[in-house]
């Protein structure tokens, strides 16, 4: 337990938030990918965050960083777009498109970048405090 573990905590948050931003970027980029590597339309993905307390802390007093517990696929139904001229269209003329919600993804990205900034701020403050602590008595 020391200022050094703040680096771990804020660092883990930086990793997690950047992964969230990666996923949002992938979702936005593939908002119109009607065919993925498996031949099916792209499905939106979301990261799941989880607290990651280091071992050896008193019971009920655990604090810790954050980790990405997993990346899950969005279960919302796919979009159906009427486009009979598209080679991917079915017999009724509908094309199945990814279930990406561009507005939600943009908001997600903004939120991730704000959280990232807050964590950078924490990291900088911890760094300054450590440097000041090293100069005690000078």
């Amino acid at each position, binding site marked *: 337990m020391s*200022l050094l573990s703040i680096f771990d905590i*804020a660092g883990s948050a930086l990793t997690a938030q950047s992964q969230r931003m990666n996923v949002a970027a992938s979702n936005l980029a593939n908002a119109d990918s009607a065919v993925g590597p498996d031949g099916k339309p792209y499905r939106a993905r979301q990261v799941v965050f989880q607290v990651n307390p280091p071992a050896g802390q008193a019971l009920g007093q655990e604090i810790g960083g954050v980790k990405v517990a997993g990346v899950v696929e969005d279960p919302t139904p796919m979009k159906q777009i009427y486009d009979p001229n598209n080679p991917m269209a079915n017999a009724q003329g509908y094309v199945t498109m990814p279930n990406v919600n561009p507005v939600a993804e943009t908001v997600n990205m903004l939120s991730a970048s704000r959280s990232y900034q807050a964590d950078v701020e924490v990291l900088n403050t911890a760094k300054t*405090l450590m440097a000041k602590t090293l100069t005690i008595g000078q």
Partner: protein
Amino acid sequence: MIDRLSQDFGFLQQAIALREQRQEVLSSNIANADTPDYKARDFDFKTAMTNAMDQRMKLANTNLTLTSPRHIPGKAVMPSDIDMMYRLPYQPSIDGNTVDMDMERVQFADNTMHYESSLQLLSIDMKTLQQAIQQS
């Protein structure tokens, strides 16, 4: 005389250590601002400081001596000075997270200032002492 000085240092040292721990708790809150079901935590500095300075009921952690592998290990652990609590949320979010980023940032800045001022006081104390020693 020297024991009084060390007492003075001890106070500031304790204050700095607690400030450091609080800084860690607050940074954990900020790190988990988007974690579902995370509950923001904090502790009251004044209570923790009073507990830490209260010398009456301090006992070292005790382990029972084991002289046979069939003995049950016994342990008496003193409760920590810090009483970690959950923050009362003003605007809880629907995913069960109670971190209020504005509140956490303000507390973090406040704790930073207090940490720095304690450091400053400690430095001044040391300087005074040094001057007293060098005066002849």
